[in-house]
């Protein structure tokens, strides 16, 4: 008899259910399968109504984030062989409303992302004849790790402050703001500060560090936020001591 493993999945059909409920499926155990393969097996052979997001199946698109045994993970990055228990619990990402089954509503994140102005902001008009921005490898190194975010939202699911305050701008958005603030081509730190340095920005963070623990791309949003706290505090002191200076 071939080995199987049970997946206990949180289901929710908004048209029928008043509340989410668990449903268990028995799937084949394969050494090289990830949870996403198990989900695809369920959808293909056992229950076509199961809804979930996925795309690349190689941990670069950020679509398949979900809670696997209570831990935020990419389902394409969670190998069945790493789960010794016979039952693997699969739920939608924490701290987001459930749309349907394993699909969460991520509109709030999209708003938070755009609110930090994640694009190069220049302080002067540059005619095309000036040519490209020049940037040394050292200047690139300063912000490169913060460019690696795939918007998978695992950090939002892991962050307790995201759970306690839905208005918290959150790790990924703040890490992205930091990416631009550190970019030598950018002059927009002040434009971002109204959001980034607000009470719902970096100041909601208490450096739990769970965001960086679960990040599949080693972006280290926790570091980005602490560095931003220091930068924002220095800017605050500067504004205090030189009230007339340009912000």
């Amino acid at each position, binding site marked *: 008899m071939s080995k199987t493993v049970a997946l206990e999945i949180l289901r929710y059909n908004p048209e029928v259910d008043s509340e989410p409920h668990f449903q268990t499926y028995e799937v084949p155990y394969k050494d090289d399968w990830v949870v996403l393969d198990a989900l695809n097996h369920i959808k293909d052979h056992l229950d076509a109504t199961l809804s979930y997001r996925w795309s690349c199946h190689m941990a670069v698109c950020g679509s398949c984030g979900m809670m696997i045994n209570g831990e935020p993970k990419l389902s394409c990055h969670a190998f069945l062989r790493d789960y010794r228990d016979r039952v693997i619990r699969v739920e939608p990402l924490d701290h987001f409303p459930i749309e349907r089954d394993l699909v969460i509503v991520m509109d709030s994140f999209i708003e938070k992302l755009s*609110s930090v102005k994640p694009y190069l902001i220049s302080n002067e008009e540059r005619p095309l004849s000036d040519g490209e921005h020049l940037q040394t490898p050292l200047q690139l190194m300063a912000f490169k790790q913060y460019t690696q975010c795939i918007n998978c939202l695992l950090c939002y699911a892991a962050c307790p402050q995201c759970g306690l305050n839905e208005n918290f701008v959150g790790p990924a958005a703040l890490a992205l703001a930091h990416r631009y603030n550190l970019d030598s081509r950018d002059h927009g730190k002040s434009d971002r500060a109204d959001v980034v340095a607000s009470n719902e920005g970096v100041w909601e963070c208490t450096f739990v560090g769970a965001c960086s623990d679960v990040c599949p791309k080693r972006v280290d949003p926790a570091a980005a936020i602490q560095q931003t706290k220091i930068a924002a505090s220095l800017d*605050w002191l500067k504004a205090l001591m030189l009230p007339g200076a340009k912000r």
Partner: protein
Amino acid sequence: MARSNKPILWLPFAAGGLVAALITPILIFITGVLVPVGVLHLSHEKVAAFAHNPIGKLILLGVVALPTWHAAHRLRMTAHDLGLSDGVAVKAACYGSAFVLILAAAIALLMI
């Protein structure tokens, strides 16, 4: 959304965290182990002499006030983590206690 004034609370919190990390353990070791065991004797004369010196006063104030503030701010944030609403009551209890303690320390130091 506007830039927050949190830095006024956070900067002394951060300073207090560093001071507490570097100095508090050895202080507790002195007052909680070395003195009770008898290895060290903290006479009124010796300590008051240190506190009499204006630089000594500043050092003592810093070593006491900054960790106190650090604890107050951190406990306020932790209260929120534990489900208490981050309202006037929690803030008054945390920062209020810190102010009282720091004021008491400052007054005591001025009197020495």
